[in-house]
């Protein structure tokens, strides 16, 4: 097996680590890397980790239609979920709607999906966006699909836990409502990250390097996980793994 680790494999592994000890992870629309990470976490789990993947027939335990994912989250039965964003700002506000003055957006994204709900209710929401540029990681989003934090009187058991990009991992500090740089992926630097990030964030004195997947994990990703994810994301799987 080639030991050249693709960046997608790195990201799958990094996200998967954040799902240790969870009992139920849900994956929304257009999320092949988080979906693979959830399947990897399940494969590595000693207990029964459940994965519910939107659009999958095999990895879907729901039997009450489109509303069940959301009801289930409100019942506290979902431990982790993933959200992305056309824009993400330093307060972990996310924008899935568009750039410009709404509703006359210059650039239109698909829409908010369930973000304006799941971001409030799922305890560990992992923000994931590969592209790490000032275009995406902005000082302030143009449209808040879902805010990163809420006033105390809002019922909000859930919220952001981390932000994973092609360059690094940020953790979200709920008290400060700010990101803290957690680890930098191999081959990237702090200077580069500061330059490519449109928002200000906390920088601990020592910042670790993101741990790449072990060769066992890599084998798992390229075998079982590549196969499992291909049901829901055939194009992704065939492009990445040639499956």
């Amino acid at each position, binding site marked *: 097996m080639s030991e050249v680790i693709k960046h997608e494999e790195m990201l799958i592994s990094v996200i998967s680590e954040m799902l240790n000890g969870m009992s139920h992870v849900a994956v929304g629309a257009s999320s092949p890397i988080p979906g693979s990470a959830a399947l990897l976490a399940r494969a590595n789990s000693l207990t029964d980790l459940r994965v519910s993947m939107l659009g999958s027939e095999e990895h879907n335990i729901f039997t009450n239609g*489109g509303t069940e994912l959301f009801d289930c989250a409100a019942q506290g039965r979902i431990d982790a979920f993933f959200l992305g964003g056309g824009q993400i700002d330093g307060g972990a506000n996310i924008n*899935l709607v568009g750039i410009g003055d709404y509703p006359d*957006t210059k650039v239109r994204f698909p829409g908010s*999906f369930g973000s304006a709900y799941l971001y409030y209710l799922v305890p560990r929401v992992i923000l994931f966006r590969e592209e790490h540029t000032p275009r995406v990681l902005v000082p302030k989003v143009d449209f808040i699909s879902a805010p990163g934090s809420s006033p105390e009187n809002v019922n909000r058991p859930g919220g952001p836990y981390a932000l994973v990009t092609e360059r690094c991992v940020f953790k979200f500090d709920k008290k400060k409502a700010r990101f803290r740089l957690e680890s930098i992926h191999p081959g990237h630097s702090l200077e580069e990250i500061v330059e490519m990030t449109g928002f200000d964030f906390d920088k601990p004195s020592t910042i670790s390097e993101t741990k790449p997947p072990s060769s066992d994990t890599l084998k798992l990703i390229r075998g079982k996980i590549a196969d499992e994810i291909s049901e829901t994301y055939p194009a992704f799987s065939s492009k990445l793994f040639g499956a």
Partner: protein
Amino acid sequence: MTKHFEKVETLVSNIPDSSKIALAPDYSGCPMEAIRKLIKRGVTSLHIIGVPSVGFQGDMLIGAGCVKTIETAAVTIGEHGLAPRFTSAIKNGTINIIDGTCPAIHAGLQAAQKGIPFMPVRGIIGSDLSKHRLDWIEASNPFSESEEPLILVKAITPDITLIHVPLADSNGNVWVGVRREMMVMAHASKKTLVTYEKLFDGNLLSEESMAPGTIPSLYIDGLALAENGAWPVGLFGNYPPDENHLEIYMDMAKTDEGFKEYINEYVFEPKAAE
């Protein structure tokens, strides 16, 4: 009371212009053949409700100029990228967009299903979505001892639900399996029109194993057989999406001209679909 139509054309002739029409996302039951017939007929000014999002069928209807307003949590062609005709229509301001979020759309339909004027929904507070929604009210939770804000979502009652399902029987019952958002849609809508993949031999409600996934004919106004009726999107349990065709669409639909060519070829002169 459920009418069986011989042709999909006749079924969709029951959808007036300007209807408020509920559609399912690409992974649920998409009546693609009926959508093509609707476009061919030249339906106009539709108000589409994505339950909770809409994909290929929404993009096609928008591209063909059939849509005035779209109310949805998202428009997405999944892995294939941004929905080209939707994106272009928003840029050019040719359609109205009512941005929502999945659980609020489900809640609005469930409110209509239950005949109640609204449903409370968690979350949403502080999002920019609610600023633009006159049909959502921020209220205070009357059961909370301390002040707690809460969004009330107005009931959504579609004029028509249009779906494609794996099975229907001669009594007009239709089987949707675990894709019960289609059952909520049918319960909530004034009319439900259905295309189906195969005729079920027997009564779906009499079979103990089939009944739980069945929408009774009480809620179904019209039906037509449409084999391969969800092509190219795919139908759960039956056939996968035709990814190659979707790529062709994505490529052609990048431009107005390309899209016109596409619908000429696949809607007005449908050789490839037959």
